[in-house]
Each structure stands twice: as C-alpha cells, then as structure tokens.
C-alpha cells in the first residue's frame, strides 16, 4: 500500500531529473499509451522467456511421449521452434495480440474460448469483493481516524493487521467449515446449485445477471448466496489496505491548516472529514481501491481454488497441475493485461483529479 501513495504523488522536480518530459513532442495521451504498451510488451517478454527456459518441451507436450521422430519434428516446425528466438518472440506476440493462445492440452479447446468462458466468473467475484471491501474499508478507516486512539481505532487496526497477515485460502476453508458445514448458512462451493445449472441459460456469463434475466427468483437468490462467502473472504484481503490508508490519509490531512481554519470557524469534525478532507484525498483513495481491485483479480486464483469457483483462477491452477503450458500462458497474459490496464487507468484518473483540484 506504500506503493500506492508513492504512485499517486507527483515526483518532486530536481535538477538531476531528466528533462525529456518537457522536450517530448508527444502529447500526454500518447505518452500514456506508450508506457502502457511498453509494460504489456515487457509482460509478453517475461512470459516468453519463461517458456523458452522451461524444462517442458511444447512440441513434445503437443504430440505426446509416444510420437515418432518425424511427427515430433513436424510439431516443432509447426510451432516455429526451429526459428531464431527474436522471430519466435514476434510470432508469439502476433498470436497473443490476435487472441490466439493455442490449444489447451487438458481441455482440448482453444485457450481463448476457455478464457472467455471462465473470465466473467472471476470478474463477478472480484467486483463483488471490491464493493464489499471498499464499503467496509472506507467506513472503518473514516471511523478510526475520527476516533483516533479509541476503541474503533483499535478494532480497525486489528482488522487491518489480521487482513494483511491471514493466508486467504485458509480463511476461505475455515469460513466454508463454519458457515457451510456447521451452521448451514451458506451453500457449498461452486457458483450455482445443480438444480439451476442447466435450466438457466448462460447469456452474459455473469451468474447474477443471467439468473436475474431468467426471471427465476430462486435462481437469483441461489447465485447471490453462492457468491456471498467467497466474495467476503476475498474482500477481507482488500479491506485491510483500504481501511489503513483511509485512516492514514485522513489523519495526515487533519493537521493541515485548512482543516484547522475550518475547525476554528466552527465546523464539526464530521463536517470537516466529509466535506473538506474526503474530496481532497479522493485521488489517493481511488488509487488504493483500484490497485486493490487489480490485486483481487490475481488474488482470486487462491480463493477460486478453495471455493471451486469456475473462474479463470481455477482454470489456471488446474492447468498448473497438468503443466498445460498454453493454458497457463494464456490465462497469465489475460489476467496480467487486465492488471496492467487497471493500473494504467488509475494513473490517468488520478492525474485528472489532481488537475481538477489545481484549477
């Protein structure tokens, strides 16, 4: 979370700082696009390097252990493994850009269609989690800052320390044990009851929207119930950072002169916090929430495994168990690109907020 604050602040200018920013002829948008593209290129380069350093031979994996030498050679040629490395990388890039990640070894389907099938589930889970996480996190952070040193502050501190320290897969297991097996409050793992799984038509891939559109109230309620537990577990992960940073940034603003002035003129503490401080720290808070959202997308890998949630994270872990290289790479690239995109969009949004405030 430290990272988040550093990112949101403009770098102080010093004489050693290169002057290329001023000299650059590019507009801010194209500069942003450039750095975004560079990051994606870097991501592609790293994943490509992994495949080439890997002990897994993609050609052998494609044809199987018992293939003849000639079949193996043909597969090598088809994958372009005889080409020099830069050519192979260009080929890899070209395929990734056109959404062709090859064929999954274990499902036998094109990886792209597997991802399209599983990604909405992950998005749904992460979105539900970030909504819960930021609602509770912001409330907790604001309450803790307003009652600094009080009971709520102590609770908030404990919750955030716990959230930073708890292994999320273990928390998920314990929640399943308690709320599903013992108390019977929550339905078991999965996304929908078997009863609805085949009667509700998957249109958007989002269980909540699909069940809502089907008009079956029971199905919608079932989807919501299945979503609740994994979303809460995942939200816990985000909540820690959000509440801690909200508290810290409010506290640092409370000492500022404009706050003292407002207080001196008779504004109540809650008015100062909600009317004066919150708009000022909106940029920081937005960054924190967006970064938490991005990290939830990757954190979903472990949560999905525990809750048998049929998202891209579980797809990835299943692929890992079988060493299914095309699937691992495709899923990593897609989730990684979303992560990078979210980060980049946050930078733009924060820059806009800062600009608006400067005016």
């Amino acid at each position: 979370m430290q990272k988040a604050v550093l990112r949101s602040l403009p770098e102080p200018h010093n004489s050693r700082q290169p002057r290329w920013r001023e000299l650059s002829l590019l507009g801010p948008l194209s500069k942003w696009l450039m750095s975004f593209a560079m990051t994606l290129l870097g991501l592609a380069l790293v994943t490509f390097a992994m495949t080439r350093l890997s002990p897994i031979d993609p050609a052998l994996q494609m044809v199987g252990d018992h293939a003849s030498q000639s079949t193996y050679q043909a597969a090598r040629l088809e994958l372009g493994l005889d080409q020099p490395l830069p050519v192979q990388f260009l080929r890899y890039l070209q395929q990734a850009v056109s959404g062709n990640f090859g064929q999954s070894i274990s499902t036998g389907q094109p990886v792209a269609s597997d991802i399209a099938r599983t990604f909405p589930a992950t998005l749904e889970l992460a979105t539900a989690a970030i909504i819960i996480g930021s609602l509770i996190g912001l409330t907790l952070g604001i309450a803790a800052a307003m009652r600094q040193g009080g009971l709520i502050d102590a609770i908030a501190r404990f919750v955030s320390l716990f959230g930073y320290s708890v292994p999320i897969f273990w928390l998920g297991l314990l929640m399943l044990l308690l709320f599903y097996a013992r108390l019977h409050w929550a339905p078991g793992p999965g996304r929908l009851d078997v009863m609805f799984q085949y009667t509700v038509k998957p249109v958007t891939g989002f269980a909540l929207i699909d069940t809502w559109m089907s008009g079956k109230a029971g199905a919608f309620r079932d989807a919501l119930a299945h979503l609740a537990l994994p979303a809460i577990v995942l939200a816990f992960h985000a909540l820690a950072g959000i509440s801690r940073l909200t508290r810290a940034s409010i506290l640092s603003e409370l000492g500022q002169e404009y706050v003292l002035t407002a207080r001196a003129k008779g504004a109540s503490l809650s008015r100062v916090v909600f009317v004066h401080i919150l708009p000022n720290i909106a940029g920081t808070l937005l960054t924190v929430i967006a970064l938490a959202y991005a990290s939830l997308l990757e954190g979903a890998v472990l949560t999905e495994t525990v809750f048998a949630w049929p998202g891209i994270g579980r797809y990835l872990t299943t692929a890992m168990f079988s060493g299914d290289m095309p699937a691992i790479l495709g899923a990593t690239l897609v989730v990684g690109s979303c992560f990078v995109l979210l980060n980049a969009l946050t930078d733009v949004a924060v820059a806009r907020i800062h600009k608006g405030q400067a005016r």
Partner: protein
Amino acid sequence: MSALTTLQISPARWLYLRLSRSPSLTTGAAIILIVLFMAIFAPWLAPYDPTLQETANRLMAPSQQHWLGTDAFGRDILSRLIYGARPTLLLVLFVVLLMAPVGITIGILAGYLGGFVERSLMRITDIVMSFPRLLLAFAFVAIMGPGLLNGALALALTSWPAYARQARAETAKLAKSDYLAAAEMVGIKGPRLLFGHVLPLVLPSAVIRLALDLSGIILAAAGLGFLGLGVRPPTAEWGSMVADGTQVIFDQWWIAATPGFAILITSFGFNLLADGLRDLMDPRND
C-alpha cells in the same frame, strides 16, 4: 551544551527504552524469534519424525501422544508444524538475498549516474513494478517446475523494483550533498564511493521496506505451497499441509487449521515488527 550531555544515555539503554515503548516491535520480534528457534532446533523439539508414516494412527484427533493429531498418512502434525518453519524461513531468506541486492544496486546506479542510464533503468523498474506479482510467481513456478529455489526466484523476479525506486530517490538526494562532494574530493570514486559511502545511507530505509514486504512474501510462499508448487512432498511445509487438510476439512478440521494458523502468526509477527521498526526509525510516522 553541558546540560545536554548529562542527559545522554548508553545505546543499550536507549534501545531498551525504545523497545519498551513499542509493544508491537517487541511482540513481533518475539514471534519471529520463536519461529526461528523452532526452525533451527526442529530435530530436538519435534516429538516424532515429520515424515514417519503410521497408517494405523491416521487422522487421529489431538491426544496425549499426538498433541495436534495426525494427518492422512498418520504423520504427527505437531512435528510437521515445527519442521515446516524451515522451508518457509529458508524461502524468505532466499528471496531477500536475491531481490534486495539487485534492487538496491539498480537504484544506486540509476540515482548516481543519472542521464540515460537512470532513464532506462527506471523505465524497466516501472514496467516490472506494474506486473502482477503473485500471478507471475505462480506461472513461473508452474512452468519452471516446483521447488524452493524456483519459488524464491519467482518472487524475487517481481519484487525488486520497490527497492530500486527507493534507493534511486535517496541516492539522487545524496548526490548533491556535501558529504559525497567531500568524499569525491579526497579521491574516492567508483564502486568504493557507491558501496562504501552511498550504500550505508540507503540501507536503513531498505531494511524497513524489507520488513514490510516479508509478511507478503510468507503469504505468497504459503500460497505456492497450497497450490502444490512449493517444496516437494513428503517435506513438511505449512502451505502444502493446509492443502493436505483440505480433503478432510469438514471432519478433521484441525489438520488444515493448525498449519494455517502458523502461517497467520508468522506473517502477523513480521507485520508487527515492520510497524514497530517504522515507528522506531521514523518518529514522524505516527
């Protein structure tokens, strides 16, 4: 002046006063020391061999003989828990040894040399910084093969940029100082200047940063173990012990609960330690 000097206290006393004022630092340090102790003296502390299988006694509830019960292979969970501290701490150590020198060196070089070197190094740092850490680590280990060293490599690969940034910012500040000008004037240059004079001043903040990162590294390592990407069985490792307990979570819940709790406590200890260190070193940070 004389009034001030009479107030001076010995460094040991100063440390004691500071420690007693920061309960989180002492608690955190105590937890880490206990875990460290467990890891080092595991053979003497563990009541059983952690890999000894007694199929007759499988899935036993906690009892006099087996304080925390036994797992699906009849192995004593307490012994595995004690031995499990070893790979966890070893992996953390590897990650630290790999990432901190790389990050700090890059940062110092960029901050001191400036110009084109700084621009390109920082560009690379920014790029790696916005990579998805956990995801790339999982993918890396899945593709390169499981194991302690690969896990450490995977985590180090994406966690050095924070150190590089910090070291660069501090070195750039130092580069304009009289301190370095004086060092340069007496003819100190090259690596000796960078590592003899810049590094010691950059190190303290890097240590705090490290303490903050350690709990995250422990959780990531446990995640790797849980996904079966950590050390190979039958070596005891907390993350994979939780995974072993997943199958029987509804009946023999303690098998998954205890190693997870060990992860929680260790990570909690590092977090407390980092919090305390930050308070100790930086009085502004309330």
